[in-house]
């Protein structure tokens, strides 16, 4: 039986922002543990601190107080090189606005993280094509983002996030800019990737469709954790969702 380990752990994270003269406390002490290999959704209304927490977990921002541990490493102790390594190898990011590099083709976008990781040309092209095939975009490898639809761009983004076989994928509102059907496709794709590759997926979202596939849902309200629901609890409280 594989031992479950906490891939992400936060202890009493507080984040304050300075707005002019005032100090705004966005996160008011968040402590949570995320075990590896699960599909977690962080849900909450706008202004609840969802994005801020997301940035903390993803190593993009440092807390004002409290600690964030990624794979039991305190990220506040990491220097710029180690942070870059973390973002390159351990974490894959998916954004609401896709954020593909516009001057590069789909394949080049997918292989860019591999270049940073030091993978050679041929190997990266091979792996890139394989990833594109997995997301169903093998024929579009030569197209630039401007020549791809929103859903296709997001699929390239998913392939890119998987480029260096990360342990964690952070998805920030992945379906925010997509219509209903495309959004569902992406959610299904993410779930499939999570199961096939045993990646921990953490998504911050408004989208109720995510609830279907999540193993655990963390509700954030007003800078604090409102409640944490496991999958079986969800089904009971919400009922069936199309």
């Amino acid at each position, binding site marked *: 039986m594989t031992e479950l380990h906490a891939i992400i752990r936060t202890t009493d994270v507080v984040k304050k922002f300075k707005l002019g003269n005032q100090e705004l406390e966005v996160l008011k002490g968040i402590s949570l543990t995320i075990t590896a290999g699960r599909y977690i959704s962080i849900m909450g209304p706008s202004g609840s601190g969802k*994005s801020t927490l997301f940035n903390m977990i993803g190593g993009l921002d440092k807390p004002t107080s409290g600690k964030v541990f990624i794979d039991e490493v305190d990220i506040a102790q990491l220097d710029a090189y180690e942070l870059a390594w973390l973002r390159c190898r351990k974490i894959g990011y998916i954004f609401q606005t896709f954020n593909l590099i516009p001057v590069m083709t789909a394949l080049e976008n997918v292989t860019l993280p591999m270049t940073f990781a030091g993978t050679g040309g041929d190997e990266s092209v091979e792996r890139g094509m394989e990833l594109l095939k997995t997301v169903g975009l093998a024929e579009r490898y030569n197209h630039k983002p401007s020549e791809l639809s929103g859903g296709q761009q997001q699929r390239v983004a998913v392939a890119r996030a998987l480029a260096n076989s990360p342990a964690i994928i952070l998805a920030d509102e992945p379906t925010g800019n997509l219509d209903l059907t495309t959004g569902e496709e992406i959610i299904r794709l993410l779930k499939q990737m999570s199961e096939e590759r045993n990646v921990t997926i953490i998504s911050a979202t408004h989208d109720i469709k995510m609830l279907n596939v999540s193993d655990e849902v963390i509700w954030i309200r007003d800078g604090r954790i409102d409640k944490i629901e496991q999958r079986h609890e969800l089904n009971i409280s919400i009922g069936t969702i199309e």
Partner: protein
Amino acid sequence: MERLVELPFGKSVEIAYKSIRVRFYRSMITTLSLVLAVAFLCYVQAGNTIAEGVLISGDKSAFTAVMKAGYDVAPGEMSIGGSAKQRWIVVLSLLVCVVGIVNAQLMAVTERFREIGTMKCLGALDRFILRLFILEAAIQGVIGSTIGAFVGAFFALVSSLFVFGTLAFAALPIAKLALIVLAATGVGCLLSMIGVIFPAVKAARMEPVEAMRIEE
């Protein structure tokens, strides 16, 4: 355990080149100011050198021709340096050019904030971003300066032809002209790199969070 991220130099050149090619018209406008400034610099210098060549050729009409052309030479002098006013105007035009480049590059950084933030999320170090911007400026600098230098030298030759007639070609200081073209190209490249430093540093220091959506 290997804990490093890298960006091979060849790859960064490739990325920089592609960025320029895709934003072709924008790059052209940035480079245009450089072309004009370098052309002017080269024109003035080349003009001086050609006039000097005419003076040295020892032709009887040489001296009067050069005086008529507007160059300030005392009888018996064999070299033509730029006047203070001429130097001022050239320096000014180069300064205007640099300011233009700084402005254009700052705009580019602002436009590409998402791209920069995303690259950082993919693991790019600050100095990769710096390198990319500087390489872009270097490539634009080389192309723009070379074109500018040749254009400037060409116009200097043409106008010398009008002013001095065939005298101009009698003692054309080819070696010196080549050196001037080279120097002007070098100056242009330098200006391009100087102009990009502040914007590039700004880009490199950008936080990856900026690539994420801003929650309203």
